[in-house]
């Protein structure tokens, strides 16, 4: 846990390589690498170059607008922001416990989102690297190439995502940026027709999800030399865990472990998150660097997301996913797996759990009738935390006596993984780029490491497969010595 390669000692004499923008990720970021004359790597940084400002412009707005406004942070997992904000505002409107109907509908919406987001990431964004190789022919290394070589895999990817989007539509009103969750509950029930339509598909969805787990498990275990070591670094990890230590994406308490798996804290009420987590600002990135207060800046950073969650929980409540979790834990040998590429495997286990949970919820009649909204004693301050597809997401608001927001603090999933992603690409740069001539294939190794975390760099969506990538090697005097581009 060191900051090696974060800042070069004498940057003025080094050449700069930029991967700008990083492709096949959500949002917009860039990587810069500083090299000397022998192509030795001196500095590697993942920069987040977008400035968003949601925390500022939500101030002065009425609180009931917040869940609908802040979800515009993202077009891929807006439901996470919609629900995290709603959970914070549940506290504000005094709904310490929302009704069973409301909680189950929100949970259905969220698990639908987990399914669609994980499917999108695995099939559309990452399967080209995993199926063809990191430095394979760039003209095939995309979802169109996957569709040509593995048509059934590509088709399932599309259909899994579509199913998840349908779950969101019937619960939120729209596939993207709906309004279903409101402070204190939800604004609509599920109809019998909507439920039956989803039930027709859910068993295929579960089966395809199982097969997706087996596909990535096979890819991973067939090449342990690569998959167990690529971009590896050891770190703490954190997630929500549910009742009895279950894997839970919607609600629970905070648990953190160190790199050996020993608990740092557990059972923490997330209303107290700021007693446990602090954020550091560094001058070269718009994204903050969070860390555990108890451990400090240097060693207190951590990772979140599927790899953290699946290893942090004690068990998974649905049988197929629990079976796959045990397989994964056995493979890891009883100690935490830290390899970034294992994110893919755990992500598919989570997708399977989401599918199984959706099936269970669809058989629950509470979705069709019951109390939608509850309220209680009004409060001024509320925190909402949820496990978004990419990891733990914090929303914290203060609301004045006139119902206007006076303070907003968001720690989004990708921010929690900031240091972790930087560590992964530094490891890859040392291992693959150091002393070698830079090629597009080698630079893609850096991107593969970033993609493993499924970062949402701005929490914004961009046109798939159309991101241009331009890499320039620039001499210390500023002249371009080598150029690579794709469009």
């Amino acid at each position: 846990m060191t900051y090696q390669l974060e800042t070069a000692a004498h940057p003025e004499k080094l050449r700069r390589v930029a991967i700008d923008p990083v492709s096949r990720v959500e949002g917009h970021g860039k990587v810069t690498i500083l090299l000397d004359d022998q192509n030795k790597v001196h500095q590697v940084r993942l920069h987040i170059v977008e400035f968003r400002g949601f925390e500022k412009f939500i101030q002065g707005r009425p609180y009931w607008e917040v869940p609908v406004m802040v979800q515009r942070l993202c077009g891929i997992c807006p439901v996470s922001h919609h629900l995290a904000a709603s959970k914070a505002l549940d506290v504000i409107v005094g709904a310490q416990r929302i009704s069973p109907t409301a909680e189950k509908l929100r949970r259905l919406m969220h698990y639908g989102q987990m399914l669609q987001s994980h499917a999108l990431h695995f099939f559309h964004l990452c399967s080209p690297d995993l199926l063809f190789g990191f430095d394979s022919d760039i003209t095939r290394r995309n979802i169109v190439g996957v569709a040509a070589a593995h048509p059934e895999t590509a088709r399932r990817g599309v259909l899994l995502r579509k199913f998840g989007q349908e779950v969101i539509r019937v619960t939120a009103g729209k596939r993207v940026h709906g309004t279903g969750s409101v402070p204190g509950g939800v604004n609509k029930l599920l109809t019998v027709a909507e439920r039956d339509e989803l039930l027709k598909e859910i068993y295929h969805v579960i089966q395809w999800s199982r097969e997706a787990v087996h596909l990535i498990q096979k890819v991973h275990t067939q090449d342990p030399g690569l998959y167990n070591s690529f971009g590896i670094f050891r770190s703490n990890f954190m997630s929500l865990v549910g009742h009895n230590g279950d894997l839970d994406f919607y609600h629970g308490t905070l648990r953190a472990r160190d790199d050996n798996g020993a608990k740092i804290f557990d059972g923490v009420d997330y209303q107290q998150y700021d007693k446990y987590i602090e954020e550091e600002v560094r001058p070269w990135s718009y994204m903050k660097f969070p860390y555990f207060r108890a451990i400090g800046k240097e060693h207190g950073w951590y990772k979140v997301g599927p790899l953290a969650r699946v290893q942090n929980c004690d068990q998974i409540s649905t049988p197929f996913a629990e079976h796959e979790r045990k397989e994964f834990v056995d493979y890891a040998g009883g100690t935490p797996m830290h390899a970034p590429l294992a994110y893919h495997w755990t992500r598919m286990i989570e997708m399977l759990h989401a599918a199984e949970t959706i099936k269970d919820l669809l058989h629950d009649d509470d979705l069709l009738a019951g109390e939608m909204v509850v309220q209680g004693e009004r409060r001024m301050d509320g925190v909402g935390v949820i496990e978004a597809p990419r990891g733990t997401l914090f929303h914290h608001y203060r609301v004045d006596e006139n119902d206007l927001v006076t303070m907003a603090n968001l720690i989004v999933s990708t921010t929690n993984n900031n240091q972790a992603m930087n560590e992964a690409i530094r490891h890859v740069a040392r291992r693959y780029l150091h002393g070698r001539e830079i090629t597009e294939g080698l630079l893609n190794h850096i991107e593969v490491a970033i993609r493993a975390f499924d970062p949402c760099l701005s929490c914004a969506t961009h046109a798939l497969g159309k991101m241009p990538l331009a890499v320039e090697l620039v001499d210390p005097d500023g002249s371009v010595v080598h150029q690579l581009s794709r469009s």
Partner: protein
Amino acid sequence: MNQHFMLDGRSIPFEEGQTILQAAEHAGVFIPHLCYHPEFKPHGSCKLCTVKVNGRHTASCTMRAVAGMSVESDTEEINAERRALTQMLFVEGNHFCPSCEKSGNCQLQATAYHLGMMSPHFDHFFPNRPVDASHPDVLLDFNRCILCSLCVRASRDVDGKNVFALSGRGIGTHLIVNAKSGRLADTDFALSDKAAQVCPVGVILKKRQGFAVPIGERRYDKAPLGEPVDTTEGR
């Protein structure tokens, strides 16, 4: 009702004293409008209901119907003018439909859909208009005011309170609250007032209501305004 005039080639019956807009509505023909409300005297300010009568532009909410007159309304030329007016209304205020609780219930938004408005076209003014959240039951979000004056007329003519007024002139015209402090909390305004019910956009809002009505069940989700205008004509 034995008198008629022609509207876009269709014969429209009317009673003495009816305006073109009233007669058209009665006959089931939609003419876009924002400041007109059947319960109030016409204001003629938004100009969305502009038609051509015997070749000359006029507001159909103020122009009385006359037997034999020839009125053009649903034409490419007039709809383009209405679209431009609507775009100007959008850029003069801060109309952020994606997070506005009035979305789906908003007459300005529904009018924009009806007219096939695809973009604001003009540069946004982005005016700085703080909200007034001082009243316990009602929020005033001036960002969305289109100066239709319906709240002014309702408060003055129905509620007898004169809570609202338009102040300033020309481009500086803006809605104000008639209190020394300028705050709604310092008036006798009540949620049950007629003025609290007539805002066609999202300025006068019942507090803590927000998004209680789901997408698909909002007013214009169920009944869009008129038939959508064909915006492909003449392209």
